[in-house]
């Protein structure tokens, strides 16, 4: 079998914060009625974490669930388990109205870590990045400069950022530009 190749093959930048392309990660888009117990069970069955509420992310290790929209949930899992995850969802939801797709190769994932991680993202997104406006457990789909992206916090100083694979280099470049040493603002 061919080896998975992530968008930037683990590119790393160290400046104000550390920006790291996080390598292959399993992602399954599950669309359906999120109020339905069946859909919830299918998602939690693959991810092994509690079902998140509106605008939340529940992540544990390399598994997790992220609330994307009122009818879409993102299931995170190890890269090599995504196919089996889709199969498990298909089996559980057969006959109901839903859609499950393995989108692992369609996206890129970055880890932004360091004391100024909030500040680096605040330079790029219109979202409220203050500690009161965004905290671990929250999930936000928004834009970074000119492209759509989403992020959540693993802890107080570590963000995970996902974007489309086609704009991975762009997102890496703007993150590194925002993290250029000497460009700190010190707002938060």
């Amino acid at each position, binding site marked *: 079998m061919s080896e998975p190749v992530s968008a930037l093959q683990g590119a790393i930048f160290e400046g104000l914060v550390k920006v790291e392309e996080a390598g292959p990660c399993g992602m399954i888009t599950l669309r359906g009625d999120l109020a339905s117990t069946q859909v919830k069970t299918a998602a939690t069955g693959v991810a092994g974490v509690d079902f998140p509420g509106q*605008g939340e992310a529940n992540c544990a290790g390399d598994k997790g669930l992220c609330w994307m*929209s009122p009818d879409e949930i993102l299931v995170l899992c190890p890269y090599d388990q995504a196919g089996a995850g889709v199969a498990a969802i298909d089996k559980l939801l057969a006959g109901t109205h839903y859609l499950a797709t393995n989108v692992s190769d369609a996206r890129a994932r970055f880890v932004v870590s360091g004391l100024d991680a909030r500040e680096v993202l605040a330079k790029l997104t*219109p979202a409220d990045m203050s500690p009161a406006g965004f905290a671990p457990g929250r999930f936000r789909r928004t*834009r970074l400069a000119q492209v*759509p992206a989403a992020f959540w916090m693993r802890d107080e100083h570590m963000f995970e950022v996902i974007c489309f694979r086609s704009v991975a280099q762009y997102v890496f470049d703007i993150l590194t530009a925002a993290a250029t040493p000497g460009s700190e603002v010190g707002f938060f």
Partner: protein
Amino acid sequence: MLILHCPYCGVDADETELSPGGEAHLKRAGPGTPDDAFERYLFHRENPKGVHFERWRHASGCGKWFHAARCTVTMEVFGTYPAQVTEPPQEICDRITGKRPGWSWGAFS
């Protein structure tokens, strides 16, 4: 800069996160309608100085369409509401009446 509350994902979204969708509550003039009605549907738009109803899409966010009621003069936002309606909810109309007595927009007032 507009900040609209997305009724679907609960986010207060900045204008740069949204795509404008033009006038709200247009009713399509379908096959068999007279030319003047079709022309009205296709080309004639409200262009008010004051209360206005628009469609917006939370493009960089949850991707959903929704409606917004705002004032084109002061940029005051009276409220946002889901897309699955053909007229503004009473609650929004009441709020506008409280702030702009005697307002009217298209067939609504």
